């Protein structure tokens, strides 16, 4: 297999189908109803953002799609094939970069590639270098994780997630811990890479503006139990600027809806 094949964009983007999914977490006496009868379809090449306050189950749903956890009931499938374990067709970016400190940058990107059969080591290296170039870290192959800034760590994590050429990228508040300026740069990068590499992206965030900036569609969750409340289509041209007035208008509408859905619950709690 050549580099051209390995980094080709022809791998068809997956279509995710989530139907009637519920999930409860029980620890001791307490039971948290994280997801209640959630259904959602994600189209090929679509960029979907899941927003909602903490505890609304958006990260839980992402973990279920990743195959890291299993649903209590309901079905999740990618291209019609039920998901019950992690797979290289669905790569995850976590809030903490979760890079391995005992490996250098290249080693981290190579980790997943080493598990991918059918490649020689030289090819794996080429692929890893290709993605490090894509995220702008070609000069940092041999840097150690602790030497990188927060933004650079997330770029490595992105390269690592892209390297096995998955069809779906699952991103769990990947920019949550970064400063505003670094975040803005990454918004630009992620939009560019998404368009170039034609991925299907499910992106979890509690930042409404971020969701409106990145998503084709914004899915609003409410907590206790986690449910989908509303969906918003964002059809602004790309690349989008997070500071644009148009985008702010969308974000305001979503925020209003969010408050609307969360308040009644809060009153019940009181």
């Amino acid at each position, binding site marked *: 297999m050549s580099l051209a094949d390995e980094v080709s964009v022809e791998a068809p983007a997956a279509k995710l189908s989530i139907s009637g999914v519920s999930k409860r977490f029980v620890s001791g006496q307490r039971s948290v109803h994280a997801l209640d009868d959630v259904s959602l379809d994600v189209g090929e090449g679509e960029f979907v953002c899941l927003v909602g306050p903490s505890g609304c189950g958006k990260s839980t749903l992402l973990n279920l799609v*990743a*195959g*890291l956890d299993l649903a209590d009931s309901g079905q999740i499938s990618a291209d019609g094939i039920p998901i019950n374990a*992690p*797979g*290289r067709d*669905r*790569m*995850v970016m*976590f809030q*903490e970069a*979760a890079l*391995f*400190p*005992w490996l250098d940058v290249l080693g981290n990107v190579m*980790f*997943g590639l080493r*598990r*991918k059969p059918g490649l020689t080591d030289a090819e794996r290296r080429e692929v890893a270098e290709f993605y490090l170039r894509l995220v702008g870290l070609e000069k940092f192959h041999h840097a*150690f*994780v*602790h*030497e990188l800034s927060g933004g650079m760590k997330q770029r490595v994590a992105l390269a*690592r997630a892209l390297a*096995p050429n998955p069809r779906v990228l699952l991103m769990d508040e990947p920019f949550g811990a970064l400063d505003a300026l670094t975040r803005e740069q990454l918004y630009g990068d992620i939009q560019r890479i998404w368009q170039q590499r034609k991925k299907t992206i499910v992106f979890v965030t509690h930042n409404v503006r971020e969701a409106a900036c990145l998503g084709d569609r914004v899915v609003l969750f409410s907590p206790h139990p986690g449910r989908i409340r509303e969906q918003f289509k964002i059809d602004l041209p790309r690349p989008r600027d997070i500071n644009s007035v148009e985008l702010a208008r969308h974000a305001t509408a979503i925020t209003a809806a969010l408050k609307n859905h969360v308040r009644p619950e809060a009153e019940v709690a009181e």
Partner: protein
Amino acid sequence: MKRAGLAALFFAALFVGWELLYRSGFWSPVLLPSPLVVGRYLWEATVDGSLLSATLVTVKRLFLGYVFGLLLGLPLGLLTARFRVLADTLGLLALGLQALPSVCWVPLALLWFGQTEAAMFFVVVMGTLWSVIIATDNGVRNVPPIYARAARTMGSSGLHTWLWVIFPAALPFIVAGMKQGWAFAWRSLMAAEIYVTILSGFGLGHLLHYGRELNAMEQVIGIMLVLLLIGLLADKIFFSPWERFLHRRWGTAK
């Protein structure tokens, strides 16, 4: 280089202070010989081969027992961290025995194995094994679960995850445990050598013991210097490179 120079200066000053103390005549030279006398003993013992052969005997005992303890302790520690049933049994035993001063194994070893190499080997292994098990177990439990989850999404599972994710992630703890195990092993071996004569070889502990019997203070101090040197070298040769590696990778160095 500057730091090495400073260290050399410091030790030179120590020896000068010692010589001055000796010359003051405050203590009897039987109790405090001159460093020059100690140096002469070390030189003579080196020339007649007794020091070298004792060092080899001791270092060989230490090395064999330590490596065996490591090879046994590392996998056992991984297993106690992985399987609750082992944590509740073997883990508990290791915790208890780790707190036991390892010299306490000497009487038992002598009764079981007699005055043989096997007894020495046993004592060193007991000194190493338990703290290595505890450190490995503890290291694994301190690995952030996100590493294993991230690895799973990249197609790693089972033994691969243990070898290539959990184990390296636990390394800082494991190396600390190896160091502690080494210290315990070294102490217990010395205690055993001073305590009993092992017919199959005279180690440094024996030379130390005979120094006392013969009232030869220059031998006692000379051997102690050799022991100190071995401890220092072991640290610099075996552990420092590991610790430098960990500090560089994890970014924990100052």
